[in-house]
């Protein structure tokens, strides 16, 4: 038997997708001959995956300061030709020279310099504050071309910058706020801008515009702040039935790593779990149940409102036919045990549930894309299973072309009586063709117009591809799950097959109006990237989430009833208006809030409206409510250290343990283990 050379860099090049096609074939032949080599390469994969995870989890480093960004922008404007470099006629120089002196005096009148004889470099070395300014100066000195007007301006700029640096020693007494500091810099910068087209305007340096969104126009505030009902009575967001974030978090915690905060989408964690909500009885696509309970004892410091939405359940025998296109990534990066082989097993499990009502086509994509199986009836699963078994991974990933072909196939065989859906299985690593996220988004958004739905199944990717896949599924009228093992595949594609594949309502939006007579402030738990503006609620052009058959969706609000102290991190109140009467008092209404839900039928274009007021008193929360609160507390603690201090993980652990209930499938017990893992990892 041949023995391989472990020093050969081709093995790593193979793992990292760096081999030429000719080398690739050769290497694959060698694998076939040598099982030891295969094991060795498998180890390299393992190490590479750990490296990727290690770097993905690395904490971020401070970015540039505002001053530094401003400096880059200025340089950019200069180069963009708004201030031409070499085109000034000689006579202009005289005017400019005179004008610069004026400007200079105007400047110094504004910000009198402090005298200092120290060379600039020493000062830069001495003062922390000047560190950001020193490269600025170097570049100006290096550039100065006194022969032309621009050079003179550059010199001016230099002297001003130097003036500033001399000021810096006593800076703290002169400059009271960072905004003012920026104003100083912007002043020097505007010298170049002030001279345009031969006219100079003598204006004191204006501070840069501060973009502060008017609270009234932008409903999307940092969701981490409590909002006052008096100023923000409406809260609007899109439904989200995805569960991917929970699976990603689970995987990382099982491997002994704390997930990065951005990977934690609390609503997806809450919605991973099944809750026992009553289904609709009146022919509507879903029911909504509202309740609220006091969670102050449990250190949340607030009451919680629960919005429990339950989608209409469809019995398996009554389900509509499925017209599915599997879009499977077979690029080299999928060549890992938990990627393509798991994709195959997952799709096999799905295919085995199909019958004569259904059709399946398979599109594969790598460097090129192609139809691996034309639309085939589900009555006989064998041809579909054979086609799946034949798939092999190699090459680069042209995601865009594959997506186009998959949608084209789905469109050509579009059947209004069936569910038309593309199921994308990928690690999210698109690296050929359309790769920019923006282009992919636009492509999917366009294709979604055709009435074809999208399911994104993520396999084995590093964390940063997670956001790409989430956005693609949002744009494509779709849902998104992360499949890390066969149990999760079974949960998504077998146990909850209809929820995943049969959409019962699309563009589902929720708008909650709080009654200021009962509620002083509120904060939505999760849904950070699902927030909508209040105007979007009635705008049918604005896209939102889908809900599948039998899905349960839970949204929680932290609520401060009137009379309770408002937490310190609430958005500050707005003054009463001078020209408008204060909002009408809520009067006698005892309602806490009114929930409005807008949705479209799966094939509809016009939305329908449902309303559900909450007028009950606070209840003792049931086990489902308490468990959802435990998941919420856990997720929020992973996202936000300040929250973790207020509601420690031990608390969420107790809450979850006491609310386990019957726990079919053991998912709640699993959460309890994850909370324990996280506790062990935090200090």
């Amino acid at each position, binding site marked *: 038997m041949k023995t391989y050379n*472990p020093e050969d860099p081709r093995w790593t090049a193979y793992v990292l997708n*760096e081999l030429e096609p000719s080398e690739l074939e050769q290497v694959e032949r060698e694998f076939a001959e040598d099982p030891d080599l295969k094991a060795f390469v498998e180890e390299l994969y393992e190490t590479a995956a*750990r490296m990727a995870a290690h*770097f993905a989890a690395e904490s*971020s480093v401070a970015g540039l300061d505002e001053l530094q960004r401003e400096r880059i922008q200025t*340089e950019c404007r200069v180069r963009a030709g708004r201030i031409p470099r070499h085109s000034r006629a000689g006579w202009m120089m005289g005017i400019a020279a005179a004008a610069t002196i004026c400007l200079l005096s105007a400047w110094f009148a504004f910000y009198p310099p402090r005298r200092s004889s120290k060379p600039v470099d020493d000062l830069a070395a001495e003062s922390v504050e000047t560190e950001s300014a020193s*490269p600025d100066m170097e570049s100006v000195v290096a550039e100065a071309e006194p022969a032309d007007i621009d050079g003179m301006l550059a010199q001016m700029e230099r002297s001003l910058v130097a003036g500033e640096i001399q000021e810096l020693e006593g800076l703290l007494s002169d400059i009271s706020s960072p905004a003012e500091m920026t104003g100083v810099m912007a002043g020097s910068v505007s010298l170049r801008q002030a001279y345009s087209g031969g006219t100079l305007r003598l204006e004191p340096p204006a501070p840069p515009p501060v973009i502060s969104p008017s609270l009234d126009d932008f409903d999307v505030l940092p969701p981490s702040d409590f909002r006052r009902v008096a100023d923000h009575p409406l809260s609007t967001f899109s439904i989200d039935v995805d569960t991917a974030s929970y699976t990603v978090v689970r995987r990382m915690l099982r491997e002994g790593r704390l997930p990065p905060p951005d990977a934690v989408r609390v609503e997806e964690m809450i919605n991973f779990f099944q809750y026992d909500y009553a289904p609709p009885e009146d022919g509507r696509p879903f029911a909504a149940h509202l309740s609220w309970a006091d969670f102050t004892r449990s250190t949340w410091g607030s009451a919680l409102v629960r919005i429990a939405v339950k989608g209409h359940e469809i019995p398996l025998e009554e389900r509509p036919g499925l017209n599915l296109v599997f879009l499977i990534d077979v690029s080299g990066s999928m060549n890992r045990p938990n990627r393509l082989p798991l994709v195959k097993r997952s799709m096999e499990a799905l295919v085995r549930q199909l019958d004569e009502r259904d059709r399946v086509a398979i599109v594969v994509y790598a460097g090129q894309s192609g139809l691996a199986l034309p639309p085939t009836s589900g009555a006989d699963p064998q041809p579909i299973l054979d086609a799946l078994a034949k798939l092999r991974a190699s090459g680069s990933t042209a995601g865009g072309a594959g997506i186009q072909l998959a949608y084209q196939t789905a469109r050509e065989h579009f059947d209004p009586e069936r569910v038309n859906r593309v199921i994308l299985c990928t690690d999210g690593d698109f690296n050929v063709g359309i790769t920019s996220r923006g282009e992919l988004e636009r492509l999917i958004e366009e294709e979604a117009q055709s009435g074809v739905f999208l399911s994104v199944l993520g396999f084995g990717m590093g964390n940063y591809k997670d956001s790409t896949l989430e956005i693609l599924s949002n744009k494509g009228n779709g849902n998104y799950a992360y499949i890390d093992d066969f149990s999760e595949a079974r949960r998504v594609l077998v146990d909850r097959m209809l929820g995943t594949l049969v959409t019962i309502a699309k563009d589902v939006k929720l708008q909650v109006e709080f009654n200021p007579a009962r509620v002083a402030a509120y904060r939505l738990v999760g849904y950070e990237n699902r927030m909508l503006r209040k105007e979007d609620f009635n705008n049918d052009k604005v896209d939102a989430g889908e809900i599948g058959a039998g899905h349960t969706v839970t949204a929680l609000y932290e609520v401060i009833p009137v009379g309770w102290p408002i937490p310190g991190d609430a958005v500050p109140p707005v003054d009463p208006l001078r020209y408008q009467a204060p909002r009408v008092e809520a009067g006698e209404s005892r309602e806490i809030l009114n929930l409005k839900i807008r949705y479209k039928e799966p094939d509809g274009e016009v939305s329908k409206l449902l309303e559900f007021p909450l007028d009950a008193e606070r209840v003792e929360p049931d086990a489902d409510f308490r468990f959802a609160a435990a998941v919420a507390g856990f997720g929020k603690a992973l996202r936000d250290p300040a929250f973790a201090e207020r509601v420690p993980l031990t608390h969420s652990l107790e809450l979850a343990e006491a609310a386990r209930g019957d726990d079919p499938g053991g998912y709640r017990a699993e959460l309890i283990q994850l909370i324990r893992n996280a506790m062990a990892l935090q200090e």
Partner: protein
Amino acid sequence: MEFSDWITAQVQAHEAALCRYAFSLCGNEALAKDAVQETFLRLCRAERGKVEGHEAAWLFKVCRSRVIDLQRKAKPMQTLTPRHEAVLPDPARTPYESALHRDAADPLPAMMARLTDRQREALRLKFQEDMSYRDIAGVMNLTEGNVGFILHTALKTLGKQMKQLEGVPA
């Protein structure tokens, strides 16, 4: 795309990654930020046609040389006086402290610390920035063959150490 839009897009796309990379090279946050600022200033002055299409590789290469240059210049600098240090308190853990902190749970940082600087840098460019061998070679001034060899040795070494740690005979 307008020139200024192009620059803005580059800053948005690469600022965080460059700061992280620069910091990994010098371990000094302020110096890293200065190097990144200079890198973008140079981008403003560069010929767009020569950079477009491979911006990331270009930026990382320039950033690397800026860090080395600034480090050389920074050597004679005096330490800050306590008065100046008090100006900018930073209560957060530095990335270095966080890395040390993680060590307790994760043996990987300690293993990586035993690699050479070049290996660590190549690993970062590969696994954090997802660069090809060719781009890494461009950034680090090496041949593609060198890069392949460095990465292979690094992965092999780490794999072996992990195996030992897990108690599996190597």
